[in-house]
């Protein structure tokens, strides 16, 4: 167990280092420096700025300084609005993004498990077809199409939810659902097939042979085993939700990291791009690590460490 955690941890660090270095190399392969396009600065100011951002030093030194800053969780200063550090931006935006993401993930996982379960129990009957049609729509309609549609109908025409903005819970409902749609579809499908697989297992027959009523068989035997595969995709789902939040935050004007990130991409604010990328990458890689560990705990058959055998 410990050996396994250690190994996963080393891989996690390697991935983090890789993404950090990749970001660094890419950002420094842009011809000139981040201030080249800014014509408004006088020469002296420019020199000062370069000094402040360590751009006057040789590249290897810059690289080491950069890694050192990362190790102390210092993500640097925005180039376009030098009064703000990337850390501040993340502190501002992350709570909002996190709320959006967690709500979306909660909707996707809970509703997905429920829908997939219902579909499997009513295999090849009406509820199954309804769930599968919903799932197919969820997979086929991107959230940047869904978002505007929600705004137009749920927001503007039927006035059920506020069109955009952020602050109270009502405003978070539409973006959360829009963001949850794709992962919801994926969970539903996975849960359905996993549940079908479990329902055909011999141990379900054993449970029925004990005389347990269907609800008990379902809750104590089928569900737990069917959920295991769903746990494994929570990592990838979070990635999807996170990248999805870029467009959702843009569409619904939510002051989250995604919006800052998209803005920094549009106006080429390189230090913010770098900082947010590293932050998100770190977050996701860490989440994957946790999910891997959780998987080992849920399924007693998996002896962590001999995982290659899977």
């Amino acid at each position, binding site marked *: 167990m410990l050996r396994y955690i250690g190994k996963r941890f080393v891989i996690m660090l390697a991935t983090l280092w890789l993404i950090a270095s990749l970001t660094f190399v890419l950002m420094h392969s842009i011809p000139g420096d981040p201030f080249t396009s800014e014509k408004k600065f006088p020469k002296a100011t420019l020199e000062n700025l370069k000094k402040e951002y360590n751009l006057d030093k040789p590249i290897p030194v810059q690289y080491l300084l950069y890694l050192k800053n990362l190790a102390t969780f210092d993500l640097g200063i925005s180039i376009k609005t030098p009064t703000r550090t990337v850390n501040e931006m993340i502190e501002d935006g992350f709570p909002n993004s996190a709320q959006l993401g967690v709500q979306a993930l909660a909707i996707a996982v809970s509703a997905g498990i429920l829908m997939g379960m219902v579909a499997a129990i009513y295999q090849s009957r009406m509820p199954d077809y309804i769930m599968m049609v919903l799932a197919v729509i969820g997979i086929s309609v991107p959230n940047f199409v869904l978002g505007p549609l929600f705004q137009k109908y749920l927001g503007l025409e039927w006035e059920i939810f506020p069109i955009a903005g952020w602050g109270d819970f009502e405003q978070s409902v539409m973006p959360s659902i829009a963001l949850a749609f794709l992962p919801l579809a994926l969970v539903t499908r996975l849960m359905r097939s996993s549940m079908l697989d479990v329902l055909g297992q011999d141990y379900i027959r*054993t449970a*029925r*042979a*004990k*005389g347990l009523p269907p609800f008990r068989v379902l809750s104590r*035997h089928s569900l737990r*085993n069917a959920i*295991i595969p769903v746990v494994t995709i929570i990592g990838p789902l979070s990635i999807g939700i996170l990248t999805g939040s870029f467009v959702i935050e843009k569409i619904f004007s939510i002051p989250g990291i995604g919006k800052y990130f998209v803005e920094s991409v549009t106006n080429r604010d390189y230090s913010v791009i770098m900082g947010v990328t590293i932050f998100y990458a770190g977050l996701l890689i860490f989440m994957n690590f946790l999910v891997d560990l959780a998987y080992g705990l*849920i399924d007693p058959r998996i002896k962590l460490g001999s995982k290659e055998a899977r």
Partner: protein
Amino acid sequence: MKTILEIKDLHVNFKTYAGEVHAVRGVNLYLNKGEALAIVGESGSGKSVTAQSIMRLLPSPPAEIKQGEILFDGKDILKLSEKEMFQIRGSEIGMIFQDPMTSLNPTMTVGKQIMEGLKWHQKLSNTEARQRAIEMLRLVGIPTPEKRVNQYPHEFSGGMRQRAMIAIALACNPKILIADEPTTALDVTIQAQILELMKELQHKTETAIILITHDLGVVAEFAQRVAVMYGGKVVETGKVDDIFYRSRHPYTWGLMGSMPRLDLKQEDALTPIPGSPPDLFDPPKGCPFADRCPHAMHICHEEMPEVMNVSDSHQVSCWLEHPQAPSVHEGVRVNLTTKTV
């Protein structure tokens, strides 16, 4: 002796893409209190389907019980509501399955799987159920049951898992235990142990047992009565001695011939039955064994023979029993092969 279970004219079909499979076609059987009945037959003969019908465990669709009665303590199980069935399954009739590797829930401790039925049927508290689970594990011969009760199935060996399955099935003291090929998936040495254990438990608990198997060696060892199934029908039934020494059906003779024996010379030791079982999508209207039977007559292909009483305990359905049929050397094991395989 009191009859505890009686199956009358049971028909079970399976609906598939290719059509309807007539898996069980009019089975009649009875089981007396405390006795061990073996149902013997090759795969596809309908023996497992018959057993699962008793528990009403067949998935529907595709399975459908077309007609018949299964009388348990005088009540027709097939007429009970699903709710009444919960009271019978596990409590009155227990069942163990072929593959102990897949029949236990991998994510639940063995103890909990035993306790579940106890808590549901006998409304035991957690501690009581646990105590009983440990007792059951001890009863089925699992060493250090206090420790084992908290382990997961993957920590058990194949033989131990089957013991655990038996513990689950017997936890609520059922009147009948149905064992569906309980030893097929196990090593030969373990097989003997499990059978020994079941025999021992039968004496201790006076549970009636229906043992489903294709292994005649197991039958001789274990059962008091035997029913031989073929093509969805019971072709011969009788006491163990009736079947082993005075069998009247050519299929039973064939089964005996394909059983390994040490007392015969090498070349006679094992004689397979040529051909393959009938297509149950479109079952023959006559005797299902006629195609493979060395003594088959015209009538065998045309009409299903009636059940004939050989003795009070011994019934057979074969046209050879008909007074007009030519006599075949009775009780002599006829070499059924026409060519060496």
